[in-house]
């Protein structure tokens, strides 16, 4: 039983013979939910810190915001260390959500009918980041990335709570004409997945969900570097050997090695057998 905060790593060799006996609760430890062999990482492909879509300024805002949504703290690395900004940049460049229905006519609907926006995810970021920076300037006199962590938290709280939408309107929205059935030309409304008009509150939810995705995705996508997200919670990752020897080990934290897709791709390229830290 090891945990990141305990700073102890189990050796990633063949596992101890599985026991069907529950271990005493005193051994469970209270600070983490059972951490596999932390720190024993299979080789993974190198990542490069190259932006493919964001400007340096946009990336700085995303990086800073992600670092407040999942901060580095006493529980270990956060979204900045996980490379979340690079994950989002790469996914936007690759065409996130390109398999959506996008045909009109666009018209407002009920919250139960879902996202009504014609904005692409790229445009949501472009417009959302600009508005977020504008709100930071109006409230604190500086752009978001230049604020103290305390002030960044305040901006994010104002976005999350909807107060920022009272101050800053996402740029560009009023200029898009749309024909509503029977009512003539009107400004379009951009609705978030929760049915709210697209604005900073909706954009915050996008940032939050993508930060979590970039923190917990397979590292092959550019986030979760060194599997820091998985190590935080004890998710062992891509275990192609599975847990047949362990599933009936009720209450015993898994102590095999963390593994990810790059582990297997590297091994495949080298022509070796698929395998992982459990030695199967």
């Amino acid at each position, binding site marked *: 039983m090891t945990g990141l905060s305990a700073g102890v790593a189990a050796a990633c060799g063949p596992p101890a013979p599985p026991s069907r006996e529950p271990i005493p609760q005193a051994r469970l430890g*209270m600070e983490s939910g059972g951490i596999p062999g932390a720190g024993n990482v299979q080789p993974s492909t190198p990542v490069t810190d190259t932006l493919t879509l964001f400007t340096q300024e946009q990336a700085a805002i995303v990086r800073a915001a992600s670092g407040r*949504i999942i901060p580095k703290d006493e529980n270990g690395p956060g979204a900045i260390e996980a490379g979340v900004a690079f994950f989002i940049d790469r996914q936007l460049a690759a065409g996130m*959500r390109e398999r959506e229905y996008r045909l009109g006519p666009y018209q407002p609907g*009920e919250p139960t009918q*879902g996202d009504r926006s014609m904005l692409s995810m790229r445009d949501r970021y472009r417009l959302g980041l600009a508005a977020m920076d504008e709100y930071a300037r109006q409230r604190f006199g500086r752009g978001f990335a230049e604020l103290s962590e305390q002030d960044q938290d305040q901006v994010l709280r104002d976005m*999350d709570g909807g107060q920022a939408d009272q101050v800053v309107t996402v740029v560009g929205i009023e200029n898009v004409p749309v024909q509503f059935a029977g009512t003539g030309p009107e400004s379009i409304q951009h609705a978030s997945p929760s049915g709210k008009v697209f604005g900073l509150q909706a954009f915050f939810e996008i940032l939050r969900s993508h930060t979590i995705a970039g923190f917990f995705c*397979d590292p092959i996508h550019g986030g979760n570097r060194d599997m820091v997200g998985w190590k935080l*919670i004890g998710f062992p990752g891509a275990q192609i050997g599975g847990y*047949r020897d362990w*599933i009936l080990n009720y209450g015993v934290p898994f102590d095999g090695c963390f593994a990810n897709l790059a582990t297997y791709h590297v091994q495949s390229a080298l022509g070796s057998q698929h395998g992982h830290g459990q030695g199967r």
Partner: protein
Amino acid sequence: MAVQPRVDVVSIGFGLVGGAIANELGKRTSLQMVALERGPFRRTIPELAIDHFDEWRFTVQGELFQDLSQETITFRNAIDQTALPMHQYGSFRPGLGVGGAAVHWNGQHWRALPHFFRYRSHLIERYGSNFLPEDTTIMDWPVSYDELEPHYMYFEKVFGIAGKAGNIRGRIQPGGNPFEGWRSEEFPQPPNQIAYGPTLFREACEQLGFKPFPQPTANSPTTYVNPDGMALGPCDYCGFCEYYGCHVGAKASPILTVIPSALRSGRLQVRELCNVLRINHAGGRATSVSYLDASGQEQEQPADLIVLGAFTLNNIRLLLLSQIGEPYDPQANRGVVGRNYTYLVMGGGGTGWYDDRILNRFMGSGANGYAIDEFNSDNVDHSGLGFFGGGSIACNNTGARPIQQYGPLPSGTPTWGSGWKAAVKYYYNRVVSFGIQGESPAYRQNYADLDPTYRDAFGHPLLRITFNFTDNERKMIRYIAAKASAPIIAQMNPAIQQVGSDLADYNIVPYQSTHLQGGTIMGSDPTSSVVNRYCQVWGMPNLFVVGASNFPQNFGYNPTGTVGALAYWAAEAIVNRYLPSPGMLA
């Protein structure tokens, strides 16, 4: 437009239904067959093997789901609203590609309860003719449980279903579901090795006097060879089933079983990336299928027999686009195509967060747990309760992929920042949940038709869904939550306990289930059903429509097992009854 050489049989869509029927025709006839599938032909190994451990690609980006940029549905809660197109996935996730949604399913297998096949008659006999709400259009099936039993059994052998029988030829078996219909034999395979969290649910249920039993599963616990010689398993409980392939070939799917078997006949051609536009017909016979091939060219495929076995939504839509059967009109309560569209009711389950247990939530399979059936369907005496219907209750360790399953977290937990991070770290591996799969009855006002405004990428009308839950289901969920979820979670005794809240309006945003039924329902009367008891379209004997679209209403279980049984029931009718004497079967 090019006209292809005539074949004996065309299958529209090539998933579970098309694969099972093609396999039977391949083994038992000499017919020449073509299968038209809009998605790609991927094999479990290698395409859906190691790389499937990728939550971002498969779950979040929906690698195996239908491409909404080509076709979606429009949705509204009620007739007086304007239906709007579903832009992105939420409530349900139809599959794309050979094998269909049964490639990315969890593998939870159920048979419907016997009384469900004569549900309207059963409820009226038990509670009187004034018992049912006036707007309910639930119906008896035109086929009985006894008639389907051999086909359930055969499907279970083909898919290597693992479980523990509760009723073998009328004798109740310890450890199984005492409420299930009789089975001719034990399950083909013994239950899975079951993860820790569900055993806590099982123990609590036993202590409360309920009869928990292992969730029947298509995740093969051993190396299994089915009647066609196709091999499955063994499952290693990696926790990547729903939305994924299977790197060890343990999760039974059409592309591991019936489809490779069907291809061995040498008389089946699968055409991938073909979008069917309509079924052409004249004089009460289906004559050919028009489709766009992979290059976008329109093709016509003449055939003597056409099997429409696509997903529920596509079965309904293709009949409407082909002008086969009278579209349902809810105002006049007449017409048949689109009638009795039903869903499934999720809500009212229990969640517990432990301080003193590590649960290894990430170990499991799509159907790894225990269930109870005391509160399903009419297993409860509904006298005086003010509602009908019920639901199964199950606790499964289906995996804990962290982007979407880092939680649930106790209510009041911060949604970001260090407080969120600490809670995720602490609770990720200490939480267990169980859920209710509640029955979604059929109502006059819930239906499907063609949208008057929105179109697919090829210019054809989208399917429009009009659907909402009613007070009946709200009372049902509230009752089960109070009588089952609350005592079970209390008995499990976690440090923090929560029971799901009341049922709101149906919302297309959060994922609930891909259990869509009805719209081409089977019945004994052509004025209220689309197909007869053999899944044959009334008035068009050479067109069979098969799938969950045939269910007159949902029951409180996953539909796939009954879809499999219906596919074999229809195949049997085609081989033994239709081919010797092509015409309407009586």
